[in-house]
């Protein structure tokens, strides 16, 4: 039997620093700790990585729709010549916020959601290393996202394009508060990314199940690890840039003021030093997802696991040396251009390794075309198209023809939508039964897949033509005068693209319908619906609060699979030796007696709430800065003094301090 213990009234000596007999609840006066495990409180104050993961996912999905509606408005404007759906100013706000929303409020947090939910399960841990910090990260993301979007009603959203080139983003050239909101909002979501990344790295390095060497880690966890390293090192760079931006706009500094002698290229470098690693931050989690999905549905291990891990790390590393390929036309001089051109080509090599390995994973397999599998194969195909156009940009002279045209827009939507987003959908279908205990309908799923694939190719495919025919991006309209005639007529392809976008919206809509239908009626999914291979399937669906009754000891990559199947080493023949249920029953039979789970807390959400308050303060009123600042101090103080596990007196009625065995519990907490 497993007991989730409540902590004892008299904390056991847990390190000499903890004094005996201090009741943690005293630390913050009469405020009682939120401990309920049901109702809204159980979500708002939760520190459970699974709940946070779900909340990340739900909020990110919401922002996907917001960004999608913005995209639809853009496409509606461009459907015909001299579009009048949006005014010039609104159009500029639209594509700026579309990109910002999609990148920072959809793909990144969605990946954070997957990582949050799955990484502890995949490595056989009970939560992340710093659960409250995890909650704090989520609230920063949510409040940052809301803060950013309130700019729409508080004088206009940011209108400088998502890379916010200076000096066009100066207060002189963009007088509304939009860009202030943008800078501060990204600063807040940046905190979410940074704390999330620190947390996950420590979790992955430190909390693996016994036996799980790094090279036995599931590949998704590996890719997440690489991404978190990219975040840890890239976020500070954008932080610097955003601070300079804020000092310039709010406090009169002159970092990008050419009149004062500034060099506008400073911003571009800082932005892209962050920005290029950022694009791999967007896509690597999805690479991880399909690297899980493809083997499962090919019924073969991932081909060349080591190479895939290595190439992921290599992509991450090389990604730091290529940023100036976004600046080939900016006048870097031929030497810099040549260097960055070459380094950019280099990155195609490790990425190619991934494509090759996925293809070879399928090769010789026994392919089961579930929706998850189809999205994963879709990713290979679509991403390759986008990657290859990326290589044509890497050739600097030809990029000077392509840069800032729709050909670039085609490139990055193929790698982002065809890479990151298709991967995310694959992950939805694959892990839905794990997370919600129900399988998404495969029937609607197939429709979802095909409509999405057709829609995306119709939307973004023509952009290759539009771009190579010379239509620049970020144009609030196009004119017949420069549209050409015949097969390459820009008008025709713009219409195709716009129609495609609405088909794509139907594709996304089908997913939403699928979710609703499934939630309403689908029956419970079997324990192991896909005959999966990794640890997260070795527990109930959805998993219990503490994930595993007993932490499995890992002997091999694909641990779960090897517990179900035995391989004859001579013939290579597989025999099934256990069902998933049997494996699980075995684990449950050895359930750990004492499991401590961290308790919910007020402080993460309070601390996160203080940040947008300070943000509004910087924009509108200095008093709010003070209010926010005090709130920060208060909640940090309370946080520091709050033990990670609630005291018994926090419960109502106070529980029995001692667990059933009466002995002292092993208190493993360190709280800083």
């Amino acid at each position: 039997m497993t007991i989730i213990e409540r902590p004892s009234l008299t904390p056991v000596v847990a390190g000499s620093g903890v004094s005996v007999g201090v009741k943690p609840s005293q630390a913050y006066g009469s405020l009682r700790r939120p401990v309920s495990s049901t109702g809204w409180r159980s979500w708002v104050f939760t520190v459970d990585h699974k709940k946070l993961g779900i909340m990340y996912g739900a909020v990110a999905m919401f922002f996907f729709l917001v960004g999608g509606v913005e995209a639809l408005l853009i496409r509606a404007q461009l459907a015909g010549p001299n579009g009048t759906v949006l005014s010039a100013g609104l159009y500029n706000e639209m594509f700026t916020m579309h990109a910002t929303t999609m990148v920072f409020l959809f793909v990144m947090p969605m990946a954070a959601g997957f990582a949050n939910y799955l990484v502890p399960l995949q490595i056989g841990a009970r939560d992340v290393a710093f659960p409250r910090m995890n909650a704090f990260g989520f609230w920063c993301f949510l409040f940052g996202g809301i803060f950013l979007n309130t700019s729409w009603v508080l004088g206009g959203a940011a209108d400088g394009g998502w890379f916010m080139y200076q000096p066009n983003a100066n207060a002189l050239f963009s007088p509304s508060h939009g860009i202030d909101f943008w800078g501060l909002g990204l600063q807040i979501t940046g905190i979410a990314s940074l704390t999330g990344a620190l947390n996950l790295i420590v979790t992955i390095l430190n909390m693996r199940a016994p036996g799980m060497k790094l090279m036995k880690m599931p590949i998704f966890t590996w890719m997440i690890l690489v991404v978190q390293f990219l975040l840890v090192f890239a976020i500070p760079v954008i932080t610097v840039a955003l601070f300079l931006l804020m000092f310039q706009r709010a406090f009169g500094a002159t970092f990008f003021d050419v009149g004062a002698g500034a060099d506008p290229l400073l911003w571009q470098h800082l932005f892209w030093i962050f920005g290029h690693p950022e694009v791999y931050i967007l896509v690597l989690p999805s690479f991880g997802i399909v690297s899980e999905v493809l083997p499962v549905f090919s019924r073969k291990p991932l081909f060349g696991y080591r190479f895939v891990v290595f190439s992921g790390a290599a992509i991450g590393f090389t990604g730091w040396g290529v940023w100036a390929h976004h600046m080939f036309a900016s006048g870097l001089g031929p030497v810099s251009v040549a260097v960055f051109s070459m380094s950019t080509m280099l990155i195609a090599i490790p990425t190619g390794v991934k494509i090759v390995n996925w293809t070879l994973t399928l090769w010789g397999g026994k392919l089961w075309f579930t929706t998850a599998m189809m999205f994963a194969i879709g990713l290979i195909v679509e991403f390759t198209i986008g990657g290859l156009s990326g290589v044509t940009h890497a050739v600097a002279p030809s990029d000077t023809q392509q840069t800032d045209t729709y050909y670039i827009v085609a490139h990055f939507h193929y790698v982002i939508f065809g890479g990151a987003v298709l991967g995310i959908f694959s992950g939805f279908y694959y892990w839905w039964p794990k997370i919600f205990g129900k399988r998404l309908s495969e029937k609607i799923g197939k429709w979802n897949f095909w409509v999405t694939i057709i829609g995306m190719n119709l939307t973004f495919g023509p952009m290759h033509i539009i771009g190579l025919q010379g239509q620049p991006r970020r144009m609030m309209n196009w004119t017949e005068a420069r549209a050409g005639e015949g097969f390459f007529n820009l008008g025709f392809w713009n219409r195709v693209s716009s129609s495609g976008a609405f088909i794509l919206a139907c594709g996304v809509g089908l997913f939403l319908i699928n979710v609703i239908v499934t939630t309403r009626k689908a029956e419970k999914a079997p324990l192991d619906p896909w005959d999966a291979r990794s640890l997260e399937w070795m527990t109930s669906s959805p998993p219990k609060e503490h994930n595993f009754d007993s932490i499995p000891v890992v002997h091999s990559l694909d641990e779960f699979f090897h517990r179900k199947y035995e391989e004859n080493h001579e013939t290579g023949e597989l025999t099934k030796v256990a069902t998933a249920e049997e494996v699980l029953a075995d684990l449950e039979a050895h359930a750990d007696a004492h499991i401590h789970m961290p308790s919910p807390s007020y402080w993460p959400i309070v601390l996160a709430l203080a940040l947008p308050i300070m943000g509004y303060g910087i924009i509108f009123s200095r008093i709010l800065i003070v209010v926010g600042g005090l709130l920060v101090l208060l909640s940090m103080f309370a946080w520091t003094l709050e033990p990670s596990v609630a005291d018994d007196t926090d419960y109502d009625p106070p529980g029995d301090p001692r667990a059933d065995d009466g002995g002292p519990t092993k208190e493993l907490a360190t709280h800083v």
Partner: protein
Amino acid sequence: MKRSKSNVPSLQLVQHSPRHRGWLFGAVGLAAAALSGCAKNAPQDTFDPAGSNAQKIQDLQVPVFVIAGVIGVIVLAAIGFVVIRYRDRGQEMPEQSHGKPSLEIALTILPALILAGVGTFTVKTIFELAKTDDTQCIINVTGQQWWWEYDYPAQDGCGGIKAPIVTSGQLVIPTGQNVLLRITSRDVIHSYWIPRLNGKRDAVPGRVQTLRLEADQPGIYAGQCTEFCGLSHANMKMEAVALYASDFETWKANQLEGYTAPVDGSAAKQGEAVFTANCSYCHQVNDLTTTNAAGEKVPVLANPDQYIVSGAAPNLSNLMTRNTFAGATWDLLTPACRDKVWKAVPEAFGALYLQGVTPECLNQVDLREWLRNAPAKKPMYSSDAQKANSGGKVRGMPNLGLKEDQIDLIIAYLLERN
């Protein structure tokens, strides 16, 4: 293993997948293959070089696109093959093989080799395009929200220029000469791009950057500002006009011709007064004079610095020698007249262009709209509320509240600026 067959979803749709996506790549490939010539393509076609610089890019990018296309087709074919060949037909569980390092390494080295080849030619082209030592003509190009100014400094190049020429919207160059643009900006970053003549170069305030153009044949080459520069980024176009050397001489001479005052009593003469009163504090018309309170003739000098954030407005001395206005976004020519110029054969082009805008050919509709209320036609920051943020200065041309009869007079006046 015994999986119940009902677990396996239907496979019918999947088999078509690679074919379906194949068309797309085909389309991209086609775009690449439609190299030059095809006059129907959009005027900013990036695969349609009309001069040596763009040709260098073309020579590089065509093979690159072909290589990329071939690799794409190979990957798609492989996926297609695998998807059909290895779909679950109830075969045995596959061998649990973990990979094959030799194959991996081979498939890593292969792309590396391809890219090494591409890289070599790339670097070579980069340096070739950066060459400036055989320049024959220098033009200063300045971007500003939301139009381009061209300033031909006095020089021996360009067939000899004695006094500076200032114009806007249309860049006029001699064919066959290596023209060096020295590009900068007065406000935010813009980017100069005439696709058929060369790639882009950003106009960065505080920096002067160079870009070379050379056009083999006379004609108009369309271009567009490609760095996002605010409200009217989409309306910041430009055109390069290439003329035979002899025609270019005529053009230069015309630009440098002194001011011809309108005939006394004509509508144009009245227009001159309206212009002097309403326009000339921003727009320069060279050698325009006025009579001051003391009865002396004094030159009218524009002082745009004081009224416009970016500090300049187009020089209107020779407005009617250009075919377009306001960032080359609207035509000064009626559609019929415009067509004639654009579609002229190279030999006939120069003469047609040099005619400029005759009264019959003037596109009154757009020009009038412009004069009536410029910001309504072209989004600009010119309203009072927007001016408040920039110390009362405008960005773009403000609404001057002219009456219709004033507009008539101004148009009569402007028509003589040729």
